[in-house]
C-alpha cells in the first residue's frame, strides 16, 4: 500500500493482509540497493499472525519514488515519518544490513516511536571497502556482483536453497540489478559513514534482538556479537548462514523474530 511520507509516495508491502493500525505493528527495513521483497517469508508470516506489517521500499528503491537519502540518519527520520504517516503510535522495527543501521538510528533518535528493535546482519561501524565503493560509484556490474556474492555464504551457488527451485544468488543478483543508477553507491556510502556515538548505543533502553550469520561475508559475525554486547539486555542469536539470513535461513530467522516479537 502507499503512504505519503515527507511529501512523496512511499510503498510498503503489508504481507498480503489489509493494514490494520490497531494491531501491533512491525516495520521491516531492507538493505542496500534492495527492496521489501527480501522479507517475503517473514513479512507474510507476521501479517497472518496478528501483526500490522509494513515492509517498506526506502525512498528511491523499488516502488517508492523520491530522492535518495544519503545518510543513515535521514533514512531513520524517514522511517519515523512513515510510522507517523501510517497512523501508528509505536512500531517494532526490524532491519537488515543497511536497514539494521537505519533501525538502530531510529531507536537512538526516535526511541519513543519504537516498541522493539531487531538488527539482522548488523555491524557498527559497517565499513565498505574502497573497491566496492568505487564499483558502486561507477554503477559497474562488478558492484552488483560484489553485493550478491559477498551478500551470501561462500559458495552458496553450490548448495541447495531452502526455497525450492530458487537460485538464492541468481534471484538476489537480479533484485540488486533493478536498483536505479546511483542507489547502490548512496546506500553503501551511507553505511560506510555511519558512526553512532558509542555512549548512545550503550545507553539504549529498548528490547533488542541481534541476529548474526556465522558465515556472513559482509558484516562480520564477531561484529554482530560485539554489538549485542554493547546494547544493554540485547538478545543474541547466531545462525548458520551468510549475510542474507532471511532467504539463506528463512525458518531460523523467522523463529528468532517470532520468539522476540510475540
Amino acid at each position, binding site marked *: 500500500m502507499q503512504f505519503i511520507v515527507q511529501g512523496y509516495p512511499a510503498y510498503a508491502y503489508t504481507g*498480503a493482509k489489509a493494514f490494520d493500525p490497531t494491531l501491533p505493528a512491525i516495520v521491516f527495513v531492507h538493505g542496500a540497493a534492495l527492496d521489501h*521483497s527480501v522479507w*517475503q517469508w517473514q513479512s507474510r508470516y507476521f501479517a497472518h499472525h496478528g501483526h500490522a506489517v509494513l515492509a517498506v521500499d526506502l525512498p528511491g528503491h523499488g516502488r517508492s519514488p523520491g530522492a535518495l537519502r544519503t545518510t543513515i540518519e535521514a533514512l531513520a527520520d524517514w522511517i519515523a515519518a512513515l510510522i507517523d504517516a501510517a497512523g501508528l503510535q509505536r512500531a517494532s522495527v526490524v532491519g537488515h544490513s543497511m536497514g539494521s543501521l537505519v533501525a538502530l538510528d531510529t531507536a537512538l533518535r526516535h526511541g519513543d516511536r519504537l516498541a522493539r528493535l531487531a538488527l539482522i546482519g548488523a555491524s557498527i561501524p559497517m565499513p565498505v571497502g574502497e573497491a566496492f565503493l568505487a564499483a558502486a560509484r561507477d554503477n559497474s556490474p562488478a558492484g552488483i556482483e560484489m553485493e550478491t556474492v559477498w551478500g551470501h555464504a561462500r559458495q552458496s551457488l553450490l548448495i*541447495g536453497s531452502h526455497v525450492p527451485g530458487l*537460485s538464492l544468488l*541468481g534471484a538476489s543478483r537480479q533484485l540488486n540489478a533493478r536498483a536505479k543508477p546511483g542507489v547502490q553507491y548512496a546506500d553503501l556510502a551511507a553505511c560506510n559513514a555511519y558512526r553512532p556515538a558509542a555512549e548512545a548505543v550503550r545507553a539504549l533502553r529498548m528490547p533488542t534482538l541481534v541476529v548474526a550469520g556465522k558465515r556472513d561475508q559482509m558484516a562480520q559475525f564477531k561484529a554482530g556479537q560485539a554489538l549485542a554486547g554493547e546494547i544493554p539486555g540485547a538478545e543474541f542469536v547466531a545462525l548458520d548462514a551468510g549475510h542474507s539470513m532471511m532467504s539463506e535461513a528463512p*525458518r531460523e530467522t523467522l523463529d528468532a523474530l517470532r520468539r522476540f516479537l510475540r
Partner: protein
Amino acid sequence: MAHSGPKTPHSDTLAVHAGQSPDPATGARAVPIYQTASFVFPDTDTAASLFNMETPGHVYSRISNPTVSVFEERIAALEGGAGAIATASGQAALHLAVVTLMGQGGHIVASASLYGGSHNLFAYTLPRFGITTTFVSSRDLAAWKRAVTPQTRLLFGETVGNPSVDVLDIPALSGLAQEHAIPLLVDATVSTPCLGRPLEQGAHLVMHSATKFLSGHGVVIGGVLVDGGRFDWVRSGKYPTLTEPYEGFHGMVFAEESTAAAFLLRARREGLRDFGACMAPMTAFQILQGIETLPLRMERHIANTGKVVAFLAAQPMVERVHHPDLATHPDHALAKRDYPKGCSAILAFELKGGRDAGRKFIEALTLFSHLANIGDAKSLVIHPASTTHFRMDDAALAAAGISPGTVRLSIGLEHADDLIEDLARALRASQR
C-alpha cells in the same frame, strides 16, 4: 575505471555441484531420490504456514520435491537465472510459460523454424484456448517487428532451430522485446547452457527439453523453464497474472510478493498446482546424472559434428548441408559471434534423389538409430517431413527450412570415424 567482481564457480563445477548439499539426514553425497508424494508436517502451525507461503518448504511433490529442486537449482545456476521449474516434458515447460503469461486474447510471435511439437501447440492447440501465434522467419527482424500487435505477450524462438539449424539473433530480438515491454522466451534445447547463455545475451526466459542433451542418454522425458528474473512485469503493465490480485491464492499479487521471482511464483503456485505437469523425482535424478557430464559430452558432440559436417559437405551425392560451421550457412557469422564453442550437434542435409534416396539412406544406416529424438549419446537420424513435422503443409515446411528430402542427424558420442564410415556406406546405397 575497470572493476572486477568476485569469482563464481565455472560451468563445469556448477554442473557437478550446484543446488545440492550432502543429504542432511544421511550424509549421502549423491543426490537422494526422494520418492515420496508428500512431506510430513511437524505441527499444525507449520502446515498452515507452508500452505500460506509464510515459510518455504515441500508439501506435495506436484508442487515441489527435494530431488527435483536440485535439478531446478542446478539449471538455474548454469543459466544464470533467478530460478527454474522442472516439468514433465519440454512441451509442458513451453505450455507453462505461455499460460503463466497470458489467457484468452493473448498473441505470440514465434519463429517459423520450430520443433514440430512446439509448432503444433502454437498453430493448432492454443488457438482453441484463444491464444494465437504469428510465425515469422527467424532471420527476418523486420517481420518480427511487423508481427507484434498490442495483444502480443511473448516472443519465442529456438536458440538453434531444429532441424534447420538456423541461429536466433537473441540480442536483436531482445531489443525488440524491450521496445514493446514483452519478454523473449527461447528454447535452448539444442545449444544447452554449455554452448550459450541466452539470459546473458538478452533473453528473459529459457526453456529446455531436458530429454535431450541435459539428460544425454535418451532415457527420460522432462523439461525445465528458467526465469532470468530481469523482466519488469510492473513497468510493462501487460501481465495482470503477475501484477493484479489472484483469487486462486487469497488475492496474492505475485510481483509484490517477489520482485525478481514473480513469474516463477505464479508458474509454480498456479501452473504446477492446477495443470499438474510436474517432473518425477526419479526423472530429475536421471537428468542430474546426465548434467554432471554435460560439459564433457558437449565438447565431444561438437567435435564429432564438425567432422561429420566436413565429410558430408564434400560428398557429391549430398546436395546441401545445413550447419553453421559451414561458411555457406546464412548464420555462419552469427554462430561464430554467439557460440564460439560451437552451437549444434544437430545438422540437416539434402540428398540428391529426394525422398526416395532419403528412404534408402536411412534404411542402410546401421550405427545411426532411426528414431524421433535428438541429443542422445547415440547418433540418431530421422526424415522430418514424414515424421516430426508431418502435420505441416509444404509452405510451413519450407518456412521451417525443411524440404521433402531433408535428413536430420543428431551426432552422438561414438568415434567420429565409425560414424563417417556408416554415413559413407549409406550414401552409396542411397544412390543405387
